[in-house]
Structure formats: structure tokens, C-alpha cells
């Protein structure tokens, strides 16, 4: 299970960084979403001693730490809001510049 989680986090990070570096803004935002998920998984895994036993069992030393789950919950809410804001700004930008290429959204220079 740990190996699987580690591999999943690594793969998500890799794909996310690759996507973020693309010139297409929409792909780039998808990379951002993936990055958020990779970080959430990482946070989740920091609290799981065994990773399988839920936080509220009586088996002390076996159970998962509940705090990272609270952190992840907060992070999910915030990332939902931020992705919404990014996408809404992207909507305005794509309507105005008629492109999804980052290099062409460049009126601010000087």
C-alpha cells in the first residue's frame, strides 16, 4: 500500500509538472489541479502510520493521525475555490484574446 501511494504521488507530481509547463493555458490549469491532488495525497500519507486503520479505533499505535485529514479537507476546499477563480479568469481571457496560447496573452509589457 505504501509503495502504491508513493508511486501514485510521484506519478501525479510528474504529470502535473509536465502539464504546468505546457504553453496551452487549459492544459496548464489541469496540471495545477493534478498538483493540488498530489499534494493532498502527500499530506494524507504523512498521517497514516499504517494507512489502513481509521482514526477513531481504539487500537492505539495502529490508527491513522486525524490532523492531516483535517488539513487535506481544508486544502481541498481552498483549491476548489482557487481553481474556480483561475477558470473564471481564463474564461475572460480566452474571450478577449481569442487564444489559449500563453505566449499570445502578452499585452502587459513595458
Amino acid at each position: 500500500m505504501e509503495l502504491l501511494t508513493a508511486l501514485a504521488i510521484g506519478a501525479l507530481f510528474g504529470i502535473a509538472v509536465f502539464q504546468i509547463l505546457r504553453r496551452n493555458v487549459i492544459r496548464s490549469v489541469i496540471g495545477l489541479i493534478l498538483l493540488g491532488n498530489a499534494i493532498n495525497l502527500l499530506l494524507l500519507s504523512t498521517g497514516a502510520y499504517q494507512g489502513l486503520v481509521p482514526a477513531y479505533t481504539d487500537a492505539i499505535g495502529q490508527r491513522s493521525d486525524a490532523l492531516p485529514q483535517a488539513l487535506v479537507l481544508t486544502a481541498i476546499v481552498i483549491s476548489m475555490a482557487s481553481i474556480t477563480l483561475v477558470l473564471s479568469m481564463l474564461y475572460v481571457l480566452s474571450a478577449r484574446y481569442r487564444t489559449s496560447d500563453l505566449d499570445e496573452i502578452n499585452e502587459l509589457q513595458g
Partner: protein
Amino acid sequence: MDQHLALLPILLPLLGAAVAVLLRRRPALQGAWALVIMLSSLASSGWLLARVWSSGQPVVFQSGGWPAPFGISLVADLLSATMAVMSQTVLVAGILYALGSRDQVVGYPAFYPLFLTLSVGLTGAFLTGDLFNLYVFSELMMFSGAILTAISDDRLGVEAAFKYFYISLLASAFLLLAVGSLYVSYGTLNLADLAWRIEANPAAPLLPLAIALLTATFMVKSAVTPFHFWQPDFHTASPTAVSAMLSSVVVKLGVYGFLRMTTLLFVEQAPAVRGLLVALGLAGILYGGLSAAGTHNAKRLLAYSTLAQIGFILVAIGWGTPLALAAALIFTVNHSLIKAALLMLAGAVASRAPVKTAAFDVITGLGRQMPRAGVLFFLGGLALIGIPPTNGFISKMMLFRSGIEAGQFTTLAAVGLVSVLTLIYVIRAFQRIWWQPPLEEAKVKPVGDRLLAPALLIAAVLVLGLWPDPLIRLAQATAAWLGDPQAYVRAVLGG
């Protein structure tokens, strides 16, 4: 009751923002309400600072009554309280400017609530004693700032806000990664708890990663040179009342973060961070100064100048002696006042230009019709360069004295040489706007933004220049406090 005082500067604007949303159909009332709330919030943070300073002990609020490492603590020590007072002073001036502004954006129902949440995020990030809570507050600040810029009158606002928001999201990702790696190594996120655990076990394998990630995060927040590229766009395109906040107090979050990192969290590892800060600070002074001298827009010039001024602060933090830390704090406070005033003045000139922009092509010579703004800009410019009788002189003097005391003569010589650039770009802006004749028969609008807010800030600049003693003593007390991280740990954790 006493410890609840630390909550007020955060809670008041938050409640105020909620009520301001309800007042959205009464614009005049909403603006007045925002001003009243911001003023009372400033009063509460001033009270907090007075309490912390007179007692010599930080005010610690454990939310929900949970003792320190388990609950979220708000810690108002001298540094946090000073930063809170500084930022709320400038935010009050920002609301005053917005009330007298002729921008369309200040009429939007969302403007004042967002302005208040910006202040919540900023003050909260200064006052919190928990790393994850810092993330949440800085996120709130980032959202408010980005939306306020995206709705700017300038049609490029959306592009600038997108850029800023995107970069800041990446910075938040860094911060979350740092949170994760610190939590897995030490099992806590409370700053005081982290501080002693890191000191007890500095060999944790993920610690260097966490330090690097936190450094990168605060560099993005403060727009330090390699991470600065979004900053001039963002500060130019946002509405004047907002850009004056962004370029003065919002960028100070990173400065605060570096001060906390080097004096509380990573005391043993601080030399590496400090070396980096000196190098990047010097690069920032040079790059910001050169870019400011070469740009074609007054607001952009001031935004680039922020890069350079943050560089001075970083160099002082990098020297790291008590006197240098005091100098960094004085520089931080003074720069906030100066830069907010200057940006407001540039915005006021732009508001009377035929086309609403601060580009030199348009506003050259317009200043001849607004002599009062000229006097204020001249005084602010003197302060930015560092000429008496302004507070800018005090901050430069403290910086150079601390450099001599620390024996950093090479860096000091470089700083002194490069700070001549400040003189060049300030004179250039003043010359273009107030000395040169207008390019053609420009039609200046009869009314523009009111000059009350920048006038108040410039008055503060002069007062702090002529009577700097209280600020210097406060900064030295803060530096002495920062030199003893154990005291912080004891105050938060008890015992």
C-alpha cells in the same frame, strides 16, 4: 479577556466584511462602514502593540481553549503586532483613498468586502502562530488581491491577476509541501512547538527540503528577484487604492516570513538562508533600480522600485545582527508608508489624465496643474531616496550603521553604489510629471482622486523622520526579542 485582544484585529475586519456584503445596495453607507471598521481594527491592533510593548510579553490566544500544540494559537509578539499596526495603518489610508477615488471599481458592491478580507488575510498571517493557519490566511489575502485586480478599470487587470494568481497558487503548493514535510518530521505545525523540536533534532532528512520550500514561498510572496516577474504587471494594472496596498504592505508578508524563519524556526540553519538573502537582495536592488530607471509608466516605476526596496530589507535580514534586524524592521515600516503614498499620488495624477493611465507618454507635464500633488510627491520622493527630514533617511541610516557594525563593508559599498539608482528614477518621475511641459495641449480633467490619503501618509513620513525615536526603540526592542527564540517558545507553550 486579555488574550482575546490578539483576536480583535482579525475578527473585526472579518465581521465587517460580512456586514459590508449585506450593505451592498447602499454604496455610501458601505464605504463609511468599511472605514469605521478599519479604523477600529487599527485601534485594536494599536492597543495590542501597546500592551505587548509595555508588558514585554506576547499576547497569546489559544483558540477554543485548546492548549498550545493542539489548538491553533494566535501569537502577537512585538514583531507580529508591529507588522499588524503597520499594515492596518496603510489599509486605513487605502480605504480613505478609495472613498475619494473616481475609479469605477470602487463603486462595485464587492470592492469594500474584498478590501476588508484582504486586511483579514494579511493581519491574520502576521498574527498566527501556526504554519497551516498561515497558509489559510495568505490564501485569503491572495484571493482578495487577485479579484480586486481582476475587476480593475484597467482592461489588462485580468491578465495581471491571472499571472499573479497562477504564480501564487504554485507558491501555495510549495507552502503545503513544506507543511507536509515538517509535519511528517516533527508531528506538529505550531511554530513554537516546531522551533524547539527542530532545535532538538536538526538531522531530520526532510528538513532541508522544508527550508528550501518555505524560502521559495516567501520569495514569491515578497517578489524577490528571480520570482518577481509577475509583480510589476500586477501592481501596475490593479486599481490605485489596491496597488498602493499590494506594493507596500502585502509584499511584506515574505519579509515577515524570512524574519520568522531566520530567528525562530531555523536558527541553526539560518546562515545558509541569510547568505542567499544577501545575494538576492543585492540582485534585487540592482535589477529593480535599473528596471525602474528604464520604464515608461509611473506606477510601473514604483512597482519596480518596490523590488529594489525589498532588496534593501533582505540584505539587512541577511546580515542578521540585532542592529541589522532593527534596521530591517524600520525599513519595512517606513517603506510601507512611503510607497503607498507615492503610488496613490501617481494614481491621482493618472485619474486626471485624459486617458486613465500612468504612462509617461500621457501624463508628462500634467503635474503643472496639480502643484499640491507635486509637493507631496517631492517629499515622498525624498523619503524614497533617503534624504532628511524624512523617515527614508532614518531607515537608510540605520541600514548603513548596522552594516558598518556588522563589518560587511563589501556588501555595504555595493548597496550604497546601487542605491544611487533610486535617486535617478525618482528624479526622472518627478521631472516627467511636474517639470516638463505637456507634450501637446493636454486636457486635464478638472477633478480627480482626492489627495487626503497620500497627504496623511506623507505627514506620517515627515513625523517619523523628525521624531524617529519611538520607532527606533520599538525596532530595537523587537530585535532583542527576536534574538531569544526560547522566550517565544516559552510564552506559547507555557512553562
